[in-house]
């Protein structure tokens, strides 16, 4: 079946602009995760959704970052007033039930470049 998809695959933006990154999880997966992969920080957890609610937002680096999930499916990560340090690959993952033992399936990522 279809895996996790993300769009766009690449995004170049100017400092100060807002960007939206989209994630389509595997159908039927109730849990959805956002991670960020950058050269300096490695792979970092950002936020986790169970259904449409986000019980854990602890990884969001600043209040410029927000995310929502609608219909228990698609999620959007929004970065407002982008800064150069936001440049990274943003990875989305989904899992069946959101349990610690579940396998998380990753999308190909969105590469964000802030000029």
């Amino acid at each position, binding site marked *: 079946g279809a895996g996790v998809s993300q769009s766009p695959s690449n995004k170049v933006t100017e400092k100060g602009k807002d960007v939206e990154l989209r994630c389509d999880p595997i159908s039927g997966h109730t849990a959805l995760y956002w991670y960020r992969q950058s050269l300096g920080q490695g792979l970092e957890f950002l936020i986790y959704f169970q259904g449409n609610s986000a019980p854990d937002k602890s990884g969001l680096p600043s209040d410029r970052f927000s995310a929502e999930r609608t219909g228990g499916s698609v999620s959007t990560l929004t970065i407002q007033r982008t800064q150069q340090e936001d440049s990274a690959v943003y990875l989305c993952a989904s899992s069946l039930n959101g349990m610690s033992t579940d*396998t998380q399936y990753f999308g190909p990522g969105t590469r964000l470049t802030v000029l």
Partner: protein
Amino acid sequence: AQSVTQLDSQVPVFEEAPVELRCNYSSSVSVYLFWYVQYPNQGLQLLLKYLSGSTLVKGINGFEAEFNKSQTSFHLRKPSVHISDTAEYFCAVTVNDAGNMLTFGGGTRLMVKP
């Protein structure tokens, strides 16, 4: 809080040689352990995971890993590597009582040479 250390940032190896990628973790509670592989310009793919039971876990593409609780390690091994195994490998943990996000190590780049 938990943490994961991958001791080698890069591992060069010749084709058909054996390889071991090292992973150590730190946690005050029980963890579940994962190895993911990332091929260039792709997302992460699960190689194998340890949840409980036998400490030797076999995964895809001929990889296996052994959980050692006393040494808090979960090293990844393959007896004979191929050029196609060239990729970045990430060790990760989740804990049962503090959410289920993955905490990753810094990654090990495996470079298989002909």
